[in-house]
């Protein structure tokens, strides 16, 4: 249980160590292997059609890992390996997901797409609860104005006949 000891650990990277690699020394700092979406789509279609990939992907989907998470991991790994850039991978993501779902469907697996909102919070909010609680009262309440029609007409006529009295008012 190394985490519970008070001993300092010295085998961690020092701050800024990630910036000490030579520029261009990392795969994602050099030009990508495939630069446009057509090449990237071909790359994924070929890669994902291989038997080895299919078996691994099916195992992971069966474990309950959402398709969104798996697709994101795949594209991130390829960006880090310098296969394509991050912006191209954003375009390729839906295609990767569709392919993974096709794999799941063809193997008849109950997989999690990761697209559903499992914990909708709106029902739990106080406002929603209050609105539901008082919905019957609001529906039954008579909200029509209870004013005499004759009085209302007189009021409006008085307002219209009122003469302007300001400094800029027109004089006859």
């Amino acid at each position, binding site marked *: 249980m190394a985490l519970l000891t008070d001993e300092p650990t010295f085998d961690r990277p020092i701050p800024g160590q990630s910036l000490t690699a030579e520029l261009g020394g990392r795969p994602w700092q050099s030009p990508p292997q495939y630069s446009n979406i057509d090449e990237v*789509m071909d790359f994924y279609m070929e890669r994902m059609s291989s038997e080895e990939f299919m078996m691994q992907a099916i195992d992971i989907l069966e474990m309950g890992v959402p398709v969104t998470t798996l697709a994101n991991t795949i594209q991130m790994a390829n960006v880090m390996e310098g296969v394509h850039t991050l912006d191209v991978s954003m375009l390729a993501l*839906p295609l990767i997901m569709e392919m993974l779902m096709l794999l799941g*469907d063809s193997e008849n697996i109950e997989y999690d797409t990761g697209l559903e909102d*499992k914990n909708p919070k709106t029902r739990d909010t106080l406002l929603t609860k209050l609105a539901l609680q008082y919905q019957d009262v609001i529906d039954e309440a008579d909200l029509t104005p209870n004013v005499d029609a004759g009085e209302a007409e007189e009021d409006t006529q008085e307002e219209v006949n009122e003469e302007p009295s300001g400094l800029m008012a027109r004089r006859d």
Partner: protein
Amino acid sequence: MLNKSNPAAAAYLRMDIENLSDDKPEKKGTGLLRKPSSVKSSGLDLSNPAVRVGKQMQVIRNYRNKINGTSD
């Protein structure tokens, strides 16, 4: 709850492949040097990479629908 650090869900949901847009139809030339229109244009703007991805997805989606028995 959708994971906000994962762009996959948003990217997938925004890809509306059922209604692939045909907002930029191919211009038809009228001059003598115009390209012969041997291939009938689908009306899709295939210069847009997202449309090309959408077309590819459509093929896979149709195949999925066939497998699931939900095709028209």
